[in-house]
């Protein structure tokens, strides 16, 4: 069964049902199965707190905002972070408010995007001294950055643009030029992580514009396109909100994190780690959650067997965001070929979960062998002292981590690796 026809049929069926109710039961005021309100009306599923139960514990929960100002170097939490034996962590760069997606240029420049602010930063290193500069500003939620053949790609909320030869123009960067903007403008889950695959195509997600709703044909998916924005195809559906993906170094299959819905319960659903094995696969949202729970609202009449189940579960409301395969040699052998995932940490849970870097080990067949915490300590007494967003392996095998709560980037090394100057 083709995934597209599934969702089209579901929509049709829902519409027919709604129409039937409207005709058959116009005067039954107490009818509990009233059709859902139209998207856009108050209390409709596209509202941010849709689904929140009215009890005291739930009312207390709201997204955890980050301070808009970066913490000063002496206030950064590196000393409080916990790493396995033999690993070290240091401040790589500070003073980058709202530090989000990371990307490494060919000449060693590290690019950093913004989700709530308007800038893209470049961190450069010369003679052991690091500099942070703004290379683009006045952008609208430029969360995503990608790099390919000397060109930096920037994903704003509803627009992808690029700067060619960026690493030679860091002191006087030109304005980004448009690549693609045929994208919805929804604020909810509108910010983007982007990347360029081993097929030399640009991958652009479009989240569900809601906590839980039946998305339009243009939402809840990952698109792939040529680097000039042409040849667009939808390669994954049923994707609620992915903010991180990467490709398996051997099989070249796409793995992506996906954030589960809010308000179902404290402990469910888990965020997902998915694997795309065929273009066009449907990963369940909003009908089936974490591969085995039909949604309490949209799962009626559906079965989880219609959809591709996740290969890994990343924890309840954990906000599994940026992820990369680790292909370096600095870390011990067991890390090679594993996935490192930044879990930003939950807000939709009384006892917060996440706020760490997770290590996902894979079996030879690409299935998940284990998910375990790797770097922890961002969450102290149910409060965040930092929140990891993305990871970026470096050429020497060290690992960078962005923290949008403190506005900083950290560097993780193993062994007696010489640490560079802060």
């Amino acid at each position, binding site marked *: 069964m083709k995934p597209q026809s599934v969702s089209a049929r579901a929509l049709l069926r829902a519409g027919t049902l709604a129409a039937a109710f409207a005709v058959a039961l116009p005067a039954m005021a107490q009818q509990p199965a009233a059709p859902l309100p139209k998207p856009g009306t*108050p209390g*409709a599923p596209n*509202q941010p707190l849709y689904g929140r139960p009215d009890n005291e514990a739930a*009312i207390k929960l709201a997204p955890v905002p980050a301070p*808009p100002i970066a913490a000063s170097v002496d206030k950064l939490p590196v000393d409080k972070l916990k790493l396995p034996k033999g690993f070290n962590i240091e401040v790589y760069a500070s003073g980058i408010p709202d530090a989000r997606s990371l990307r490494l240029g060919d000449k060693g420049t590290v690019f950093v995007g913004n989700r709530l602010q308007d800038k893209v930063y470049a961190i450069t290193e010369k003679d052991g001294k690091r500099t942070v500069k703004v290379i683009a500003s006045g952008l609208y939620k430029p969360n995503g950055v990608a790099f390919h053949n000397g060109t930096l790609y920037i994903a704003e909320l509803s627009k992808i643009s690029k700067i060619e030869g960026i690493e030679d123009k860091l002191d006087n960067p030109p304005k980004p030029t448009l690549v693609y903007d045929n994208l919805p403008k929804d604020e909810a889950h509108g910010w983007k992580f982007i990347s360029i695959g081993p097929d030399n195509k640009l991958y652009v997600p479009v989240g569900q514009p809601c906590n839980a709703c039946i998305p339009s044909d243009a939402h809840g998916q990952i698109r792939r396109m040529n680097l000039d924005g042409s040849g667009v195809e939808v390669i994954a559906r049923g994707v609620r909100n992915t903010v991180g993906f990467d490709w398996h170094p051997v099989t070249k299959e796409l793995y992506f994190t996906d954030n589960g819905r809010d308000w179902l319960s404290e402990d469910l659903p888990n965020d997902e780690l998915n694997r795309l094995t065929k273009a066009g696969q449907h990963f369940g949202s909003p009908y089936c959650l974490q591969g085995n729970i039909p949604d309490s609202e949209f799962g009626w009449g559906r079965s989880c067997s219609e959809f591709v189940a996740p290969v890994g579960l990343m924890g309840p409301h954990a906000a599994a965001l940026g992820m990369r395969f680790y292909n370096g040699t600095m870390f011990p052998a067991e890390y090679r070929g594993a996935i490192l995932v930044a879990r930003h940490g939950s807000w939709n849970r009384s006892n917060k979960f996440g706020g760490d870097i997770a290590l996902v080990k894979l079996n030879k067949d690409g299935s998940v062998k284990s998910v375990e915490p790797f770097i922890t300590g961002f969450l102290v007494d149910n409060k965040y002292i930092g929140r990891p967003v993305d990871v970026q392996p470096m050429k020497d095998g060290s690992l960078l981590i962005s923290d949008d709560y403190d506005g900083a980037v950290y560097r993780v090394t193993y062994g007696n690796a010489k640490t560079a100057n802060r």
Partner: protein
Amino acid sequence: MRAILAAIAIAAALPAAAATLEERLAPCLSCHGEKGQSANQDVPSLGAQQKDYVLVQLYMFREKLRKVELMNEMAKGLTDDDLRAFSEFIAKLPAPLPPADASDAARVARAQEIVGKNRCNSCHTSTFVGQDQIPRIAAQREDYLLRSLREYKSNERRSYDPAMASVVEPLKDEDFVDLAYYLARVK
């Protein structure tokens, strides 16, 4: 307007290091009200405002992420530490008081229904005093509340977090009028 320009001139003339926090904030409070309550149209009361919210707004004014020319001018050149100190001071001003008039029960009821449907109490809390970066809106000036809601709707005012843009999206202007009326009168 002349008074405001004069206030800016004073603010600019004061050497930051020499002036006390009170002295540096005097021009701000000359419009916003020294006791936390603004008497000026479209100028919000700042009393007991959440310090994290004030910090975000000052930051957005400084970075021109929120565009209000006067405030952009006022915030220009402030350091991160200034922003923190200003926010903490402002949060300690006394909370504003609602107008003394008897409120129209029908309008209040309409507004409370909108509040319920849109779950305003989730972030702003059930007493509307706000939390962290979510502002206190209880007993805020009615004209300022109405203007803010309208600006969120038209996207003229972009908040730091996308929540308000989605919340107001389905609401109509008459809803804003009732909401502003009611919230201005929350004790």
